[in-house]
């Protein structure tokens, strides 16, 4: 556990240690310390709440990248039921960095698509740290086509550092794959709901994130470039990432204010990884609510609103 403690969570460690110690010492005596224990636990919850309410943008990035944070395949079992994973783009290969398949949300069939990171080194090599190749985006588009054909809503979960910048990815048309998804999603004749559950890394995130509703978990981030990448370009110094994270406006609150997302989904104190079930409950509630509303909307109206949503994005002046 201690190995995954983020630097700003350190004040919590001492309290947690005291609580563990008290439990251990009194475990085999008859002394009643329940009052003291309750007080300590209350203090811990308060401190955790306070820390998480005041996270800096870079600290949010750390939470969004937390190795214990729930990933797409974790939500498959906590938010959805009856999941059947579908593989492959029918063109080149299956990309494990992008997963998808039929699932049920409240009994209703939906097409679930999401980036997938790995928990450890071995898994991450397999999942490529959630960085998809063109075949990942092409698989996602193929599944969206199925959803459209059979009248099922599309739900995408975004969690990627970005589209993979490698030789094979470029050879097979990374840019084309993303560009195609965008133009196809713009007119996909079925509701699309996207939730950013961790890292929303630039074009690799948007490639499955052009949607009727875009939601973000409270501690997730969404950015055109990573804070490290931005700092390296602007100040030739990747360690200036705090400064970049601040400047880029990448938190859920920032994006809501910029009109880029529709809703922030609250996370339990300590982040989604502190209580994955509570996080799943909140995510499920939000997805259900939006999917239900969108399904009631007439198709032409849905598409018109999707168009207007994106046409309104940007900031400029006109003389």
């Amino acid at each position: 556990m201690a190995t995954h403690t983020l630097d700003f969570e350190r004040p919590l460690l001492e309290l947690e240690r005291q609580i563990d110690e008290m439990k251990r010492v009194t475990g085999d005596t008859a002394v009643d310390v329940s009052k003291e224990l309750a007080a300590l636990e209350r203090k811990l919850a308060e401190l955790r709440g306070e820390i998480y309410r005041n996270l800096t943008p870079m600290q949010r990035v750390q939470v969004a990248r937390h190795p214990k944070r729930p990933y797409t395949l974790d939500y498959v079992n906590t938010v959805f039921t009856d999941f059947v994973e579908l593989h492959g783009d029918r063109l080149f290969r299956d990309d494990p960095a992008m997963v998808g398949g039929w699932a049920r949300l409240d009994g209703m069939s939906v097409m679930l698509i999401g980036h997938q990171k790995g928990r450890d080194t071995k898994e991450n090599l397999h999942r490529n740290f959630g960085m998809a190749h063109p075949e990942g985006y092409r698989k996602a588009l193929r599944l969206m086509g199925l959803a459209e054909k059979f009248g099922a809503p599309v739900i995408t979960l975004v969690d990627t550092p970005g589209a993979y910048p490698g030789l094979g990815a470029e050879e097979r048309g990374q840019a084309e794959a993303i560009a195609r998804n965008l133009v196809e999603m713009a007119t996909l004749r079925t509701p699309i709901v996207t939730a950013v559950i961790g890292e929303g890394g630039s074009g690799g995130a948007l490639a499955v994130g052009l949607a009727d509703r875009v939601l973000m978990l409270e501690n997730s981030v969404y950015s055109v470039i990573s804070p490290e990448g931005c700092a390296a370009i602007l100040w030739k110094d990747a360690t200036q990432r705090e400064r970049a994270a601040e400047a880029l406006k990448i938190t859920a609150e920032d994006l809501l204010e910029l009109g880029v997302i529709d809703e922030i989904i609250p996370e339990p104190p300590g982040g989604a990884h502190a209580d994955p079930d509570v996080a799943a409950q909140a995510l499920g509630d939000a997805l259900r609510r939006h999917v239900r509303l969108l399904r009631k909307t007439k198709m032409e109206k849905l598409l018109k609103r999707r168009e207007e949503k994106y046409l309104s994005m940007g900031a400029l002046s006109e003389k």
Partner: protein
Amino acid sequence: MAWFKKERKPRTSERVKLEIPADAWEKCDECGHIDIKDRFIRALNVCPNCGHHRRISAQEYVDLLVDEGSWHELDSGLRSTDPLTFENYRDRLLVAVKKAGPLEALRSGYARLDGMPIDLAVMDFNFMGGSMGSVVGEKIARLTRRSAEKHVPLIIVSASGGARMQEGVLSLMQMAKTSVEIARLRSARVPFVSILTNPTTGGVSASYAMQGDVILAEPGAVIGFAGPRVIKQTIGQDLPPGFQTAEFLLEHGMVDAVVPRSELRDTTAQLLRHMGGRRPAEAAD
């Protein structure tokens, strides 16, 4: 090709050549060939020796592609604001305006090409590396909307390093915004020719640049999603020679044709005739 003739100057004799002042000579960055500046210019800034395509301005592409006197600039009053109050962004914009003019990293307008009406957008790499912010996105969106509504073919000449970081996620969303309009254009069955020049990467290549009905690329242009530097850093080794060039993309099936600058105009016109149900051009005089 009328444009060519117009620029052609009388041949200089050897004797005159020797009297040319030093600043009239230019060197090719690619092969080191030294020639009279005028010869580079007459060759549309393509090296007469190795064929290297030098960068030219947005205005030069407009002049190259449209019938003389037919250009009408659109949306020239659009300006970037600083939505994130991103440090130094306003200063950098001022510098860019000084260097490349006030029309931002993309110029758009309507014109004629061999008499055919066209909507044309040309990116300007000299304006903050051709980066796509809200103004570029809006100009593309408006022009594409115009094309769809008036049934006028769309031509976009891209040159861009990608999204404009200083506008944060709003710049990323321009990829979605432009894609929404390109999707409408498709439904309207209006031709869209995308011309990729050096370089076309990042958010521009991953949106409208790669959404053309036909995608042309200038010889040697670097085209890709990630820039060569990022890839090199990721994989920890040098990139193979010719990686991400227009010719590499042609070989991998990502562009329709690699077209030298001198043929861009005629090839585009030919394509538009095909896609617009027009008869072939009259034999050249």
